[in-house]
């Protein structure tokens, strides 16, 4: 549905500073009907990336395709036409304060020259969809943040777009309202088959509704793929820093203090075992214990749900002869469970034998 090919965006030097590269050789493919998330810290280039899709930002180099149309090759009038099929919602809603809810939602249709009667036919169901029929004659100043974003969503959908771009749409909202807006977006995605591209700095948003995710850092896509895979096996430091707080891969400090990087006398290896999908519920610990006659001390464990699939992590200290431990690790690997040696534990007081 959307293809970005080697996009580069450089802002010319201003004042004393040199030229700023916002995006460096970024390529992405977003499939039809997907909710695609782009996450990154502020200044990573997310906003620029999103705006190159509807060409609010013209890339310095590279090509953008949306729904088979090469956006970067369009003349201004054709580009305006193409933008009718790309809706956009914003962090600060960007509603016209001088227009009522109804008139705000009607605006894109007015701009496209749609007759009044047809506008009404289009706007009223949209107000129903976002649950604001009773607010149709209110002004944005009379609405809460969540209601304003609903108006923004209805407005973005008015011209029946194929793609919805979301620019930090929930970042100005409280957690509960964020949840509602995300559900609304997921619902729209399912019902209308709309492709959604959203940028965010909140990993919770990605976890909640995205199918795929790209991690952007310093103007580059450093990792991308299905959300589940990125959460289960983050490759880069930046991705880990996003993922860790949500799925709690981190260890309590008291346990961290007992870890040393290399084996020592009386130390035992500490493993992080990752269970995904159906394996999240398999009785692997007792199996290992029985089969290899080793002890497994559970340090830390958690089961999360990502995109509706269970995802568990377990941190264990393994006590037993080295060859038995090795055999246990290879059994885990054969079973496609994620195994990672976090370090080696020196004796402490907090062990609980299983």
């Amino acid at each position, binding site marked *: 549905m959307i293809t970005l090919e080697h996009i580069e965006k450089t802002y010319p030097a201003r004042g004393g500073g040199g030229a700023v590269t916002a995006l460096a050789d970024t390529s992405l493919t977003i499939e039809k009907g997907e909710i695609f998330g782009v996450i990154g810290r502020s200044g990573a280039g997310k906003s620029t990336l999103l705006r190159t899709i509807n060409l609010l930002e013209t890339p310095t180099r590279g090509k953008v395709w949306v729904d088979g149309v090469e956006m970067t090759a369009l003349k201004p009038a054709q580009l305006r036409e193409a*933008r009718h099929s790309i809706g956009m919602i*914003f962090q600060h809603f960007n509603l016209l304060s001088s227009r009522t809810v109804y008139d705000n939602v009607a605006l894109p249709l007015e701009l496209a020259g749609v007759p009044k009667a047809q506008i009404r036919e289009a706007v009223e169901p949209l107000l129903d969809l976002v649950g604001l029929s009773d607010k149709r004659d209110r002004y944005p100043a009379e609405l809460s943040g969540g209601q304003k974003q609903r108006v923004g969503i209805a407005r973005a959908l008015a011209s029946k777009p194929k793609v919805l771009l979301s620019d930090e749409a929930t970042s100005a909202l409280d957690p509960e309202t964020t949840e509602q807006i995300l559900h609304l977006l997921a619902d729209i995605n399912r019902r209308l088959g709309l492709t959604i591209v959203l940028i965010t700095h909140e990993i919770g948003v990605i976890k909640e509704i995205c199918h795929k995710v790209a991690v952007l850092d310093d103007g580059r896509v450093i990792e991308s793929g299905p959300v589940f895979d990125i959460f289960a096996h983050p490759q880069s430091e930046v991705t880990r820093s996003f993922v860790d707080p949500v799925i709690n891969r981190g260890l309590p400090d008291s346990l961290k203090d007992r870890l040393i990087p290399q084996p020592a006398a009386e130390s035992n290896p500490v493993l992080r075992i990752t269970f995904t999908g159906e394996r999240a519920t398999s009785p692997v610990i007792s199996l290992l214990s029985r089969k290899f006659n080793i002890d497994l001390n559970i340090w830390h464990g958690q089961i999360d749900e990502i995109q509706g699939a269970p995802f568990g992590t377990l941190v264990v200290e393994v006590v037993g002869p080295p060859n038995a431990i090795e055999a246990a690790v290879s059994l885990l690997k054969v079973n496609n469970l994620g195994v990672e040696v976090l370090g080696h534990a020196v004796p402490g007081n907090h062990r609980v034998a299983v």
Partner: protein
Amino acid sequence: MLSPEIIALLFKATLDTLHMVAVSGLLGTLIGLPIGVALAVTGKGELLQSLTFNRVFGAVVNVTRSTPFIILVVAIIPFTRLIAGTSIGTSAAIVPLTVAAIPFIARIVEGSVREVDRGLIEAAQAMGATPFQIIRKVLLPEALSSITLGLTLAAVSLIGYSAMVGAVGGGGLGDLGIRYGYQRFLPEVMLAVVVVLVVLVQIVQSAGDLLARRFNKRNLKA
């Protein structure tokens, strides 16, 4: 205390002032508003950036704005004659008043339009709006309340300016005040002129405030 003749003069002078202010205000808005919008949208990084246009018009506006009004009145007498056929009287006074009002209103409108949140322009662009549509459907409606306040300010200034054209035979309340109040030592006429001017300014300001409040939908209570 005021003789019927003076009251009649006062009435006539008030009408003259209103006539001058209304016509020059209207013409000034008709010409100044588009110039103001043009100045706002042609600035650096704006919707229709055109720095040459912006600099040239900006310079013309600044020159007119920095010329003291009384100098402007005499300086453009030939132009006034060309337009009004005379340089004396109420109709002639409308010419310099309009010439002064245009850049004043242009700058006010420019400021109001520039205040509009850039996010709204971006949103409209994302919807596929043309620059002209953005001006008409986004910038002007969103700036309307602020423009109304600015035009009120312009009208009040024009009332003041209109008193000055009295000095060059322009007619109106200023003319009455100078000729009867000052030159004929009739302090009660001077006082009456001042009172009428104060009342006029009050009415214009209150009406402007009221309209501006009505146009402003930004501070409605939820």
